[in-house]
């Protein structure tokens, strides 16, 4: 039997999704990207194919995406994460929308039309302000486990203002707030607000809005905060962190991984 696989090797996490020719997700995995993208890709693939119940004789068609897309020896082809996130998102929400993906190192705002075509995209500028790396840095500064950020933000009363673009300068601002005795909860809510500000300055949030990515998966309160800010409902796939890998798997199914046999 043929299975179609997408592997998304991101800056922080590597995700793999296995689908069948009916576009059903049969299995998936998430592993740390670590320092060796090839190992991470291989590990993610092994776990996902086990979860999907693929046998040794089954044929896998693999499309790789993300920063490490060229580090997957088994891949039949590659696609950029921008195309894959757009494809995965449109599969989940097949209508025109604005996709916001918050990744470990990049934020993307992607415009998708009614037929699923990407009409425009923007990535954050070079620095990591407003990305997962920003949250990691601040959590580290506050000595808070990353997994606790969402709960802390939810418990906050007001939230503080973080003004700086720069992650390092934002860290300095946070030190000043600590000195002033601001609660950790309010500081965390403040950094969530900072992420939202960085998103809103990238592109107008036109039409329906979808959010995806690992940061959203682990911090659903961010979605709630953005909904309050833009005064509209935001759609989120059931596994937002897998959106890029799902899009890559769909490219495998369509035979459109670049460099692949069917490209």
């Amino acid at each position, binding site marked *: 039997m043929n299975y179609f696989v997408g592997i998304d090797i991101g800056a922080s996490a590597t995700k793999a999704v296995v689908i069948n020719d009916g576009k059903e997700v049969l299995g998936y995995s998430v592993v740390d990207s670590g320092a060796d993208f090839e190992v991470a890709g291989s590990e993610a693939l092994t776990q996902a194919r086990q979860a999907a119940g693929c046998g040794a004789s089954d044929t896998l068609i693999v499309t*790789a995406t993300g920063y490490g*897309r060229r580090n997957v020896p088994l891949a039949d*082809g*590659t696609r950029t994460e*921008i*195309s894959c996130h757009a494809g995965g998102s449109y599969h989940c929400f097949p209508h025109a929308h604005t996709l916001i993906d918050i990744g470990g190192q990049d934020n993307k705002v992607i415009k998708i039309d009614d037929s699923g*075509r*990407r009409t425009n*995209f923007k*990535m954050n500028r070079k620095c990591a302000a407003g990305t997962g790396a920003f949250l990691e840095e601040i959590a580290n500064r506050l000595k808070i486990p990353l997994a606790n950020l969402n709960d802390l933000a939810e418990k906050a009363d007001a939230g503080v203002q973080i003004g700086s673009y720069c992650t390092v300068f934002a860290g300095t601002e946070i030190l000043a707030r600590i000195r002033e005795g601001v609660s950790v909860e309010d500081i965390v809510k403040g950094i969530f607000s900072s992420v939202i500000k960085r998103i809103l300055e990238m592109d107008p949030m036109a039409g329906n809005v979808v959010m995806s990515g690992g940061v959203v998966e682990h911090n659903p309160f961010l979605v709630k905060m953005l909904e309050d800010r833009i005064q509209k409902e935001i759609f989120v796939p059931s596994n937002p962190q897998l959106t890029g890998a799902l899009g890559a798997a769909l490219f495998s199914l369509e035979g459109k991984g670049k460099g692949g046999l069917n490209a």
Partner: protein
Amino acid sequence: MTEEKKVAIKKIQATGQMRKIMADYFYKLDGVSRDGSQKIAWCTSVGPAELLLSLGFLVYYPENHGAMLGATRMAADCIPVANAVGYSPDICSYLTSDVGAYIRKETPLSMAYKGIEGLPKPDVLVFNTNQCRDVQDWMGWYSRELQVPMMGISTFRNIGDISDDVLAGIVQQIKDLIPALEKISGNKFDIDKLREVMARSKRCSELWKAVLESNTSSPAPMSFFDATIHMGPAVVLRGSDIANDYYELLLKELEDRVANGVGAVEEEKFRLYWEGMPIWGKLRDLSEFFIGFNTAVIASSYCNSWVFEAFDPTDPFLSMARAYTEIFIVRDEDFKEKYIEDIVRRYKLDGILFHDSKTCPNNSNNRYGMPERLEKRLGIPTLTINGDLNDLRCYSEEQAKTNIEAFIEQLEAR
């Protein structure tokens, strides 16, 4: 493992001749600098070079040197040195590269041309602010450092329609330079000599324009990356028969390519505009990257900036003022938008790539909503990448390439 396609840049045969004439030019400058047989003027690239040439100066162009520092990546070591003496990392990285190189007593000329040990010594420094204020500060540094007189032309900026008043002001400023330049050169100004130089510069402009416009053909015979190299003679040797002979040769080769359907990019699928400065330290890398995606970057306003169509030997001062004021960089947003729109249509382009060059706001045209307006009007996508002309600290390669690749995927899906 999937890998980027291995590609080769298609060699332009005339390159050999260009290398020779550029070498001859730099050796001549070096020789004159040593023996003092001729006066040397340093001049901004769109400065009043024609006037200087007519007065018998040999002209050296610091911007050309800045580009060489970028292309050889010597800039990486030089920029921080200039930063340390007070020149911000946010200002023109041609300036900071060049000043830093001077302080370090280094020049790519020594690497490229055996026996050349340093820059030619100037007798005068001449600028035109039609490009930016940075060129004046750049010359100002050398003026103080070398105790050499500096003079120049202050052109208005953000010019829409070029009025008679603007031109009259510039004409007067050019004329005002003459007495001092006569004194430094030891030669009396001769309008017939100016007419001769101008006629040759005009011919150079016509030929260079024809070279660039050969890219309206499909496939395009030359890439933007090729053009940034081959514009060298139009920058440093215009006003001479040497440059004109060279462009005759190059044009012939490109016309042959057009006639035979030979493109700079095999199986050209997409045609793009590069708006803004080149990223000098990544020319080859980016050139190969685009070729790997069968995408031809074939038009720019940057390379067009050395097309001085207004030159008219019968009216040298007024036409010189007009030619130096007509260039893209000095014009207002409305003019620039219409200019780009015209090129997109004539070259049948599929998209526009804006280079937001950190240290060159004067030639980064993405910052006031122009990409969005052009997208709407032309119905083609645009992409902005962040980088810099010389300072590779401002360029994130992975992000830039992912953006470009995603942009090409977007074009494929249209």
